[in-house]
């Protein structure tokens, strides 16, 4: 997994709550058997009109947000289907962090398996950042996992909490299957006990 330590990047505001994983990556793109290449289908039904043209009104199609690598969105981001294709698509598109007031459980887990950092800030902070991303040209944030902070150059600073172990795994880019297999003996012992 790609480690996540500190990332500075352009911020795109997606001012919607309850963005579900069906929106992040619609079902017609779930038939592929690879992990890669989902970025071009990210938010497909919002980015691309039924006639195949880009929808200029969608935030990610605005030229100023091209190259954005931090997404700011409303509460309960990533709800619905457990499809890991959603974080694959976000990461493949170029996002490294998502900031929202809350995330759906499975989605947040899936992000952390893919070096994509879900950052929970409170609603007022998120609202302020959305406003900044709209009003300030090339608005950038720095997300620092080591210090657990989100900052900008104008003085915005917020800290966020994250599970210590998940933070450790992200910082180091650890493969958790490898970690678990270090305890194969415990698993075998558990199986032995349950049989008895």
């Amino acid at each position, binding site marked *: 997994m790609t480690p996540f330590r500190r990332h500075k990047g352009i911020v795109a505001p997606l001012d919607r709550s309850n963005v579900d994983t069906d929106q992040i990556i619609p079902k017609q793109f779930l*038939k592929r058997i690879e992990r890669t290449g989902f970025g071009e289908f990210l938010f497909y039904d919002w980015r691309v009109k039924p006639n195949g043209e880009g929808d200029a009104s969608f935030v990610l199609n605005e030229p100023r947000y091209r190259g954005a690598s931090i997404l700011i969105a409303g509460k309960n981001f990533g709800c619905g289907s457990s499809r890991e294709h959603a974080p694959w698509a976000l990461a493949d598109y170029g996002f490294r962090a998502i900031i929202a007031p*809350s995330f759906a459980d499975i989605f947040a887990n*899936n992000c952390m*398996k893919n070096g994509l950092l879900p950052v929970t800030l409170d609603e007022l902070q998120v609202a302020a950042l959305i406003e900044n991303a709209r009003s300030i040209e090339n608005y950038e944030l720095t997300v620092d996992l080591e210090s657990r902070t989100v900052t900008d150059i104008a003085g915005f600073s917020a800290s966020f909490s994250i599970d210590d172990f998940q933070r450790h795994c992200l910082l180091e880019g650890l493969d958790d299957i490898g970690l678990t297999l270090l305890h194969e003996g*415990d698993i075998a012992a558990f*199986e032995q006990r349950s049989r008895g």
Partner: protein
Amino acid sequence: MPKTLFDKLWDAHVVRDPQGQPALLYIDLHLVHEVTSPQAFEGLRVAGRSVRRPDLTVATADHNVPTTDRSLPIADPVGAKQIDTLRENCRDFGVQFFDIDSVDQGIVHVIGPELGLTHPGMTIVCGDSHTSTHGAFGTLAFGIGTSEVEHVLATQSLPQNKPSTMLIDVGGTLPEGVTAKDLALGIIGQIGTDGATGYVIEYSGDAVRQLSMEGRMTLCNMSIEAGARAGMIAPDETTFTYLEGRRFAPQGAAWTRAVAKWKTFRSDDSASFDRTIEIDASGLEPHVTWGTSPGMVVPVTGCVPDPAVAESEADRRASERALEYMALIPRTRIQDIQIDRVFIGSCTNARIEDLRAAARIVKGYRTRQGVSAMVVPGSQAVKRAAETEGLDRIFRESGFEWREAGCSMCLGMNADTLEPGERCASTSNRNFEGRQGRGGRTHLVSPMMAAAAAITGHFTDVRDWKFK
């Protein structure tokens, strides 16, 4: 110390619980399907790993299978390749696979219980959020992503942080015509689609005890739509009666021993929960969603809400956006909303009892002209049972299509989709934008409500239905 049902299941499955790290939980049953598994099997291959317990792993193809004639080749080459890939993976790694032509094929959350694979006290995972369905049997069952699927394949265990516990106690009795689906929608309407995020819900109370296993599965299935990690119901005689004699259920002396053990899987009387919600079932009505999130729901006697009265600015904008997508005007009576399509199916509502309830409504009636309606049984076994009872004939004579088993139009990965602008009464679980087809407009309802809408062409209060 008194324990909740969840605590008991959790404690019984902890392989190791290191300080400052997630606990490692043992997984008793891993269900696998074609959409969320190919990258996991590929990961095993790349790392040179095997499936630790193929005997605790069961696969089927459900999400993108066609529901039309199964003897024909699958028209969609990409979808076909995904199913071929699962077949190869199961063969290479020694996993039991209920293939598309198997008499046991069906939606993974329908066939698990039906085959008796789901036992009280188990931990069950699947790369599918509706894994919560199995909680109806007193299991800890939850959906996982593909990286976690790979983890479970390789280690039969999963690192997990302990969630909080929520008790939803449903007193009273559900009125005639009000079902487990309406209860689930009512709960989500009350607590919101993120109301249970971070929690495992236990459902209790008289109204829950009175539910059949099918109803309990519907209720637990929808837990994820409230954001819950899992939903569960303590097993009782209803559970044991359902399971007894099923193919993979314990038999003979093992059955007696199992039931004795299963009876201990209940919350102790004085166990405490992090949050408790009480609901009176007697006052519930049939529910219909009006928006693009399962929490956007009102009773059938209600109206489309006015965004102007939303609780927050964010809710107001979400409502306005939803109404625009759904092409609905505030304050429209729910029963005045006309529909084009009806879908009776999905892991939420495609079990035999659901089909019986829907058939009872449509018997002797014809679908409204212009309404296209289909029934997609949850499994081939449900389909056969329904055909034995003559339900297929009732549906067909009423103008419904009668299909092969699969997820079908719940998520529209196969050819079963809504056309842009079409409005559908659906027994599935998600009314997200485009879920059933781009531009499609989904209203979530119970099987009876969907059946009635097919006949009248608009949402209709099934409590007033004239059965023939």
